[in-house]
């Protein structure tokens, strides 16, 4: 009997030959490795091969992962066995969050890994790893049961290399919970940085469409004593000093006054004819004479350099 360290609890005689000394990591890892409980949860075609892996011929219980459980609370292993759709990723993330730590994810098959044959589909998520941390990817469409078993064994080897000192789930204030995505007009992640990014890109796109827009002739009302042309601005605010509205048939021009600015989405009407009046900046008076031919005419809008910006034809009466 070895010398007792001072202050250590005495080890009874009958136990002494039955004690095995090892590291904490080994105990933890061996326990986890050979009692992986996968979730009974199938998504698509790959799930059938998963079921078969559990059946007599391949029998995954040989490798210590026999007990498949339908409740996420009791499982360690989430097998994403099939195509992840946008509609389904919301419950999947919720299931993942409901599992207790430590939890592992195996992405089974081409679909779960990257969208597979259905990647271009509008309802398909191109890879579960866009939402969940994945431990092992198993290729195939579907992976054969042997391939899946190889994936499991790879996961086991990975678990064997973990150490309680470095794994995150014993840390204080650690939470592996993943934000649950939301189904809007299309799916969006509820992570703040992601929301910010979507917003920024959308604003940029709106600005780009905006910048591509310009004042255009939207309507022509040329029959009657108050004829007017509507010019609408679908782009950014535009200084229209020196811009001209030109009548095709009569070859006459109206020049906008200096300092005239057309705001985004605003419109201006240019009036002519005996009854024409103009009270506000958005109604400009050209002349009291008829300027447009009632049998049909074309209006052209030119910028200060004389480039044609917009053109509109009226068929006449």
């Amino acid at each position: 009997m070895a010398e007792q360290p001072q202050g250590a609890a005495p080890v009874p005689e009958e136990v002494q030959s039955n004690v095995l000394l090892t590291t904490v990591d080994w105990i933890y890892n061996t326990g986890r490795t050979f009692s992986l409980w996968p979730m009974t949860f199938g998504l698509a075609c790959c799930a059938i091969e998963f079921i078969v892996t559990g059946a007599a011929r391949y029998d995954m219980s040989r490798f210590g992962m026999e007990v498949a459980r339908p409740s996420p609370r009791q499982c360690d292993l989430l097998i994403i066995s099939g195509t992840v759709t946008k509609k389904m990723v919301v419950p999947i993330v919720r299931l993942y969050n409901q599992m207790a730590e430590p939890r592992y994810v195996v992405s089974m098959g081409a679909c779960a890994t990257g969208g597979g044959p259905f990647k271009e589909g509008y309802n398909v998520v191109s890879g579960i790893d866009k939402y969940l941390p994945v431990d092992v990817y198993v290729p195939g469409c579907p992976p054969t049961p042997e391939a899946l078993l190889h994936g499991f064994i790879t996961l086991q080897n990975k678990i064997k290399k973990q150490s309680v000192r470095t794994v995150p789930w014993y840390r204080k204030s650690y939470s592996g919970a993943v934000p649950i995505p939301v189904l809007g007009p299309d799916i969006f992640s509820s992570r703040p940085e992601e929301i910010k990014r979507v917003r920024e890109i959308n604003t940029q796109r709106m600005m780009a469409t905006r910048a591509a827009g310009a004042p255009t002739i939207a309507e022509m009302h040329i029959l009657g004593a108050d004829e007017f042309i509507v010019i609408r601005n679908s782009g950014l605010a535009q200084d229209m000093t020196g811009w001209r509205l030109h009548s095709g048939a009569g070859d006459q021009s109206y020049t906008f006054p200096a300092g005239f600015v057309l705001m985004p989405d605003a419109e201006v009407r240019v009036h002519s004819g005996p009854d024409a009046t103009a009270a506000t900046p958005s109604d400009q008076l050209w002349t009291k004479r008829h300027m447009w031919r009632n049998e049909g005419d074309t209006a052209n809008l030119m910028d200060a350099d004389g480039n044609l910006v917009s053109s509109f034809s009226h068929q006449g009466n």
Partner: protein
Amino acid sequence: MSEPTLDAALPYSDLLPGAVLAVEKNIEGESLVVAPDQLVAVAEQLRDHEGFDLLSNLTAVDYLGFPGRSAADRFEIVYHFYSTTRGGGPKVLKARLPETNPALPTLMSVYPGADLQEREAYDLYGIRFLGHPSLRRILLWDGFNGHPMRKDWQEAYFEAESKPFKSRHPVGHHIWAEDRNPWGSNVNYPAGFDPETWSQPVTLRPLERHSGSNGVSGALKTERIVVNMGPQHPSTHGVFRMIVELDGETVTALEPEMGYLHRNHEKIGERNTYLMNMPYTDRLDYISSMSNNLAYAIAVEKLLGEAYKPTERAEYLRVIMAELTRIVNHLFSVGTFFNDLGAFFTPLLYAVRERELILDLFESVSGSRMMCNYMRFGGVVADLPAGWLETCHHLVHERLPAKLDELERYLIGNEIVKQRCIGVGYLSAADALALSCTGPQLRGSGVPYDIRRAEPYSIYDRFDFDVVSFDGCDVYSRFLVRMEEMRQSVRILQQALKQLPEGPIQAAKALGAYTVRPPVGDVYGRIESPKGELGFYLVSNGAGNPWRYRVRPPSYINLNALAPMVVGNKVADAVIILGAIDIVLGEVDR
């Protein structure tokens, strides 16, 4: 495509004047173009006086930009009616709708089975069916932006209208789809979408109106509760969801909810060339991929015409594969059905053992256990490897008959099984027909309708077999139908193996024909798949990819009967009733 006939010659011009606008000749026969407001009257005439008791297929087509079409007839709704008593081909009705506000009356008053298919057309095409009791989205979610099957709706990773995409061509460099999309992922937000200010639309919960106290007077006050089953639930065979309202243990209302596996098969199918769709059909009903191959091949061959008629040997190989598939499917379905009953996994182990042997055969002939991709237009892709026939012969003549006996001995007479199943999930023959049910579900209600007999395709008219039907109208009958159908499949297999001729496996014209361009037209090809009537409705505009690629999924349409069968039963029975429908989500959601 269309050839308007004279008014006097139009059908029903005496009975229902103005109902039929034109008669269109096409590849298969003719179809009647009906005025939308007269549709219900024509359908009543078909059902009550002409014996067309089964509304099999109902779908929409978007003809935006199709030659000869304008905004006034952009959408078309196509109906295929069959007669289960006479058999034979379909009666095809078409209704044309304009681009703005497309709407037409629902057929649910005549054929209640139109329910799910109309909801699908509404979801994917935005066509409204006036009078439909709950016209809501079904595959996508409320609030989804747009109707994705419309031709002018483009998916987030949209690249071109048809494949092969330029970026995948040998000369080009492959471009990541993610890089093309500004958001870097498979999403597409409408202009002006702001995730922070966006709020969830209020969705209609159809069951809410039922809940509350059940109004029974007396000392014991009970309340109805709404329970959610799925999409992650071991009994739903995938990602199906049922919302059930319970009064105690009894189900008082049920609402199926699907689309969790909606992977846009039909939209992708329109971009693919005809041949490219073949492996996709494997993934529809992924338990019976060979049957799906067969149905699709038959539909395309109808479009392509005589030159693509399969050779004799190919026909036999197809039948052999299809019948082996039927056994695979029924084994799996019976096995999982016993899981649902509570015999957890043991019967499934027995069933899967036999299934594995057949999968070995599939693997050696096609290269893959499940996703066989075996059939081609005009034949099959590979001949049998050496030794295949002997293995199959042993299986079909010795192993399978013995094992089927064994399964029957364990399962059919089992007292617990009888107690649980007999009288549960009652569906009368009339209801089954009205709800458009097909396959074992219909034959379990005593209607001996099997397309192999009613409208023989391939070479099924050469074999001697019985159409199995049991008239218990319950879960037990459906189970018996499956057990007995396996025996009939073995019978067909024995004959087919004996008669299998030598010869080429592909029609001469079809050899190496990777891109086929069928003539303009539309066609509906269907087979008796293990789950029911599996049909493909194809519209061709003469190009290498289909204009419309529609799958008529039997298990999706059989779900019409789920709520009527379950309501009134116990919640534990809901599980086995669903199990006896035998759904596969790849096919239900596509």
